[in-house]
């Protein structure tokens, strides 16, 4: 599935019945379609922020791989979840990893959370030409530790493809399967028991895996979770003490608990 935003260049041309590319080159049958990574989300749980992503990357109706890690540890207190074109998103992650660590080591202090949030916004804005061409859209989620409070509190941010940044109160989701996930999260937060914010880590992991299974039933671009084939998600927990990766073995055990 090729993502687009209202008013992008390709939409504008299409609205005026102009075809900028030969249909067999971009997006047409048998032609080049950019790879997309889909469906990531994060929510506040009792232990911190749990960030999750399925492991599927698609190009049109083709499954490119089911082994992508879309939740990336940027530094000891920041996580990035990528949805959109991986070629651009992975490069953004690499720039963030290097620049955050470079700042911390050279200045002997960590970059503040607002500066980290803006750094990603700036990368998205720098990607504007690719976004408007309709072939390089990235819509990431970011989680970072707010050290201005005691104890430090993990926060969730989401972005639009042009770089606008928004802080999410309880949860955020991005990618093609995000609609289903946002619906369930909204329901659980308003009417469910326990609410996501009350879930301890095992319960939160089980909930996240079930969310991905649900999303994969309605969106073919979302890879599911299948314990019988050892196909699991990428799950990371951001706590005040740092980042914890939830292993496949833990996911298997807690999903079946």
């Amino acid at each position, binding site marked *: 599935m090729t993502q687009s935003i209202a008013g992008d260049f390709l939409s504008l041309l299409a609205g005026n019945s102009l075809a900028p590319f030969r249909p067999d080159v971009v997006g047409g049958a048998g032609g080049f379609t950019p790879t997309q990574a889909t469906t990531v989300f994060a929510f506040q749980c009792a232990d911190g922020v749990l960030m999750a992503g399925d492991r599927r990357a698609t190009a049109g109706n083709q499954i490119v791989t089911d082994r992508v890690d879309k939740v990336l*540890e940027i*530094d*000891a207190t920041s996580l990035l979840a990528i949805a959109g074109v991986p070629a651009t998103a992975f490069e953004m992650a*690499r*720039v963030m990893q*290097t620049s955050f*660590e*470079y700042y911390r*080591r*050279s200045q*002997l202090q960590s970059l503040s959370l607002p500066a980290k949030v803006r750094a990603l916004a700036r990368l998205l804005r720098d990607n504007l030409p690719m976004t408007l061409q309709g072939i390089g859209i990235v819509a990431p989620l970011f989680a970072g530790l707010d050290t201005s409070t005691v104890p430090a509190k993990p926060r969730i941010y989401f972005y639009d493809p042009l770089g606008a940044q928004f802080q999410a109160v309880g949860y955020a989701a991005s990618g093609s399967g995000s609609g289903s996930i946002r619906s369930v999260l909204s329901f659980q937060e308003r009417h469910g028991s326990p609410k996501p914010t009350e879930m301890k880590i095992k319960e939160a992991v089980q909930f996240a895996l079930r969310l991905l299974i649900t999303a994969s039933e309605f969106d073919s671009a979302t890879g599911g979770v299948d314990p019988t084939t050892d196909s699991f998600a990428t799950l990371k927990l951001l706590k005040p003490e*740092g*980042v914890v*990766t939830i292993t496949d073995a833990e996911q298997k055990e807690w999903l079946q608990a």
Partner: protein
Amino acid sequence: MTEEPYRWLEAVANRRDYVREQLKDGSPVFAASLDDGILLLGVGSGQSKVFELFDRHAMAGLGHPADIEKIRQAAIDAAHLEAFTRAPEDVSLRRLIGFGLGPQLKTAFEQIFSAPFLIELILAELGDSPEKDLLFRLRFDGTFQSRHGGILVAASQPGRETEAAAFLHSHLNASSQPAEAAARMLETWWCLTHAKPLGAEAPDQAERTAGWKTDLQDRVVEIGWLSRRAAKLARFETLSRESLGL
């Protein structure tokens, strides 16, 4: 002056004397390769002696703070540029020193119309085991020696530095615990800074321990730890005296 070789040699010799004189009161630093990681230790004022450079790299030094800072920044710049251009796995201490810091320090030392760097440094690279750890001793004139594993000392007087390294080698090995290694390093630090012997005539352990504990009341022990067991990319962490029970 540079057209007259004997005056140039004399000028370089004078610079060497000048640097040693400037460094003579410097507080020594130590590094030891242990089973679980590399321990670096210095006594200073906090963030002044022991520094993280990159994921598996750290540095400890004595000398003029501004010169230490220049070398630290140069090493961090080079390491991150290499990591971003190629990959973090390509950052190597051997190349960083052999092709970067060493030649720069030699050039600065031999340019007799500009100020030399007033530094003595230890740089460490964490390997998969103590035998694969790389420790470099980098001097103010750009000369450097490396060793795999073991212990290194950087002090202002070469003779005392050798004594201190021998003393630590006789008291520590790779299986020593970080707390024990730090305690022996602090005892050695006290002997060096108080001109106490370090051979067979060294003060007994009780005196050495009481000595450094008294001296450190208004100073900061800077302890860096490159952890071999950590599951994260950045292996460096700062340890406190309290965390080691010192």
